[in-house]
């Protein structure tokens, strides 16, 4: 019953998008974090999405293991990478954490980028929820097949 797979597929996407949203929240929360005395500052994080074939066991049973097009394509977060660009430096000699030249190093989070990421992932989240809702109502109608006669 391939309609049930829709829940696996969209469920994996919803989970991946919520992880992306989590990372965006961390980044935005640390947008104004300042480097401590050790010089280490928060680095913006990014998720990496990867397609994951979910139906390989089922297609292997049908002798189609090498046929990726038949398998359901879900998605998962394969990696969380750190943005290595240097943090922005602000001249503020009065700051307690300023270095010897009077510069304070802030995290390299780009707030505009993060907001765009947030909107994009929230829209994708909604899309996948809607796909699941549609699949659910179709399955309910399928279960009632032949009963209304």
């Amino acid at each position, binding site marked *: 019953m391939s309609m049930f*797979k829709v829940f696996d597929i*969209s469920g994996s996407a919803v989970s991946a998008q919520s992880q992306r949203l989590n990372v965006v929240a961390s980044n935005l929360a640390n947008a104004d974090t300042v480097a401590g005395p050790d010089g280490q500052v928060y680095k913006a994080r990014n998720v990496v*999405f990867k397609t994951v074939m979910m139906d390989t066991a089922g297609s292997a049973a049908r002798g189609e293991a090498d046929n990726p097009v038949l398998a*359901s*394509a*879900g998605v998962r977060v394969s990696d969380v990478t750190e943005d290595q660009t240097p943090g922005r430096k602000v001249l503020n000699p009065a700051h307690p954490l300023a270095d010897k030249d009077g510069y304070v190093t802030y995290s390299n989070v780009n707030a505009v980028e993060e907001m765009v990421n947030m909107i994009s992932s929230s829209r994708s989240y909604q899309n996948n929820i809607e796909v699941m809702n549609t699949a659910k109502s179709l399955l309910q109608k399928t279960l009632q097949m032949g009963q*209304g006669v």
Partner: protein
Amino acid sequence: MLNRLTQNLDFQTEALTLRAERQRLIASNIANADTPGYVAREMDFSQALREATGSLAAGGAARMQTTQTGHIQPMAGSLGGPVGLKYAAAAQTNLDRNSVDMDRERASFAENSVKYEATLRFINGSVRSMLDAMKSPSQG
């Protein structure tokens, strides 16, 4: 004799299965809308239905063929490919090589849901007519 009763339903059953398959395919595309490098897939529904119901001529373009000696004979009823799956061409290019067109996918998804429901109603209708035909007039 008894199979005559359900013979009418076979076509609709195949159509319903393919609709569910296409729904799953579109769900995969929507799920991977943000995956870099993902290539959207689409199904040629009418061809898939013709293959499934066997109305496509045997040895046609979609069937597996043995053109060389050494090719393994396809099993009876085997098809050329997995229900006519193709790669959807991207309407707009994308920096991350993702070819999912969300507008098109959403439209296909809505279309496919409606047609799935329509097929369900056709099946229900056939069942109702068969039951009506079985009833005696006195039963009303």
